[in-house]
């Protein structure tokens, strides 16, 4: 709760600073504010209480999730200075909207009532519509925001319909109330209206996570959105939605599974196949990362399918490993794009020669996303696979590993380009904070791979 307040205040402060034209103060303030919020968020550990008539439920998983979200945002802001360094105006609005989006995301990880979920999602979405289009003169950015907005608002209609049906059958928006309704009807089978509502609600969330066939927006929007914000989208938004979904399931369907499992399993399988296969043919890194993020959504659904006490932790670990690797990849992408003007793989040719740290960062990120031990990505994947196998979803795991095998095909493209192709002689212009940040990400990726127990037993 404190973190929500502090973040909101931070956002407003940022706007004020913008009005006061204090450009240089912006980023330090944001970073400090985010850190403070992170601390506040972490301080809620073991608080375990519900606030405002169950509007918010502060529990450990929520604390962990929201901390991850704030942390990821913090990392992304670390790269903001570099990304926007040629922009003269204060950018307070963009930063403020990012922080407001984060507020929405944090709400999604604490919600105890569908109203809060709805408001959280909408805060996040509206902020993202704006962010996607924030590069106004670029036609791709325009297209991204249009597509995202149209599809997003369309799907939020379904989400609302689903909420309405759930309300109609269970008589409440409160998660615990819904849970008691579900528990009551679990034996005789849930009434169709509730099921319809449930699935429409899930579909609304699946859209945000970019699960096939609701993933179509993702590649286009990711490609069109300004790169820094794409990183935000691919990490914070996705993990927030996955967490929201987990939260919804874990409370309302506590102890009762099976209603949604098969559907999500099939969708996850389709997502993995489509994400990986399509990713294989992409000529540029940004779009490839979009498909990568789609396929990773599919992997995360494995945990959802194999729902158990360890799901939260598996998701947490996976999303952290995924987020740091993806952010690192986007960070390097920002650099290369700045130097070369595009994100085609050809731009990466031979950059390893003169930019060892940057190339190494991207390589580690790619390897982690592929799931090569002993990097964090592997441990994350292992948790998911283990969970799925434990629950008997062997076929799904087979699909997942087939996907992983295919994914080597595209994750290695930048590695091959950077290390093995002819040098194109560019030297990336990197500031010190930026370099420290990417090093930090790399070390974190390796460290989490070697010391996964730091996070594995958390929730």
């Amino acid at each position, binding site marked *: 709760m404190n973190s929500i307040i502090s973040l909101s205040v931070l956002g407003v402060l940022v706007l004020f600073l913008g009005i006061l034209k204090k450009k240089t103060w912006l980023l330090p303030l944001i970073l400090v504010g985010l850190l403070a919020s992170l601390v506040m968020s972490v301080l809620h550990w073991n608080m375990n209480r519900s606030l405002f008539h169950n509007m918010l439920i502060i529990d450990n998983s929520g604390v962990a999730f929201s901390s991850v979200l704030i942390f990821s945002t913090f990392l992304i802001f670390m790269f903001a200075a570099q990304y926007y360094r040629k922009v003269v105006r204060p950018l307070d609005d963009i930063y403020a909207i990012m922080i407001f989006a984060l507020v929405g995301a944090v709400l999604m990880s604490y919600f105890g009532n569908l109203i809060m979920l*709805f408001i959280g999602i909408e805060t996040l979405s509206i902020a993202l519509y704006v962010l996607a289009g924030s590069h106004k003169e670029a*036609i791709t950015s325009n297209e991204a925001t249009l597509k995202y907005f*149209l599809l997003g608002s369309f799907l939020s209609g379904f989400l*609302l319909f689903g909420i309405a*049906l759930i309300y109609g059958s269970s008589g409440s928006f409160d998660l615990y109330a819904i849970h008691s309704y579900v528990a009551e009807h679990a034996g005789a089978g849930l009434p169709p209206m509730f099921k319809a509502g449930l699935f429409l609600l899930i579909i609304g969330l699946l859209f945000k996570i970019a699960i096939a066939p609701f993933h179509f927006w993702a590649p286009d929007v990711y490609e069109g959105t300004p790169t820094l914000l794409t990183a935000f989208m691919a990490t914070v938004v996705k993990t927030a939605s996955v967490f929201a979904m987990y939260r919804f399931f874990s409370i309302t369907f506590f102890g009762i599974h099976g209603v949604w499992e098969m559907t999500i399993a099939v969708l996850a399988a389709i997502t993995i196949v489509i994400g990986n296969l399509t990713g294989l043919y992409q000529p540029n890194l940004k779009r490839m990362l979009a498909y990568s993020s789609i396929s990773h959504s599919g992997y995360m659904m494995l945990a959802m399918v194999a729902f158990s006490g360890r799901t939260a932790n598996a998701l947490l670990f996976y999303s952290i490993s995924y987020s740091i690797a993806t952010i690192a990849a986007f960070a390097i992408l920002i650099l290369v794009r700045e130097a070369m003007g595009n994100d085609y793989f050809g731009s990466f040719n031979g950059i390893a020669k003169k930019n060892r740290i940057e190339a190494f960062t991207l390589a580690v990120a790619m390897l982690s996303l592929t799931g090569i031990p002993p990097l964090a990505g592997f441990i994350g994947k292992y948790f998911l696979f283990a969970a799925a196998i434990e629950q008997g979803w062997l076929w799904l795991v087979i699909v997942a590993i087939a996907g992983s095998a295919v994914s080597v095909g595209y994750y290695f493209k930048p590695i091959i380009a950077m290390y093995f192709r002819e040098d194109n002689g560019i030297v990336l212009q990197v500031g010190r904070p930026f370099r420290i940040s990417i090093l930090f990400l790399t070390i974190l990726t390796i460290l989490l791979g070697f010391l996964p127990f730091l996070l594995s037993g958390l929730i």
Partner: protein
Amino acid sequence: MNTLTTIPINHYLIFCSMLFSIGVIGVLIKRNALVILMSVELMINSVNLLLAAFSAYSNDPAGQIFVFFIMVVAAAEVAIGLAIFVLIYKTTHSIDIDVLNKLKW
């Protein structure tokens, strides 16, 4: 005014479903982004009515509160949406959704 006793709730449900479907059809067949947004608003309104009906029939104010929030959000959404359309119109002089398809494959 004894609507609740004279009209079965099923009527409301079916009415809302139809309205919702018309909204969906509108989204699917129209090319004008503005009309699509209107269709989306129609969908949302049908949901609003559905919630209000549930709320009224079960004598629970929560549903109507939710409708209130939906309206809030819808207003915000429309504001943003229209801003986006204006933005796009500035660059492409059209708000036809099929004009913009540079990003693909």
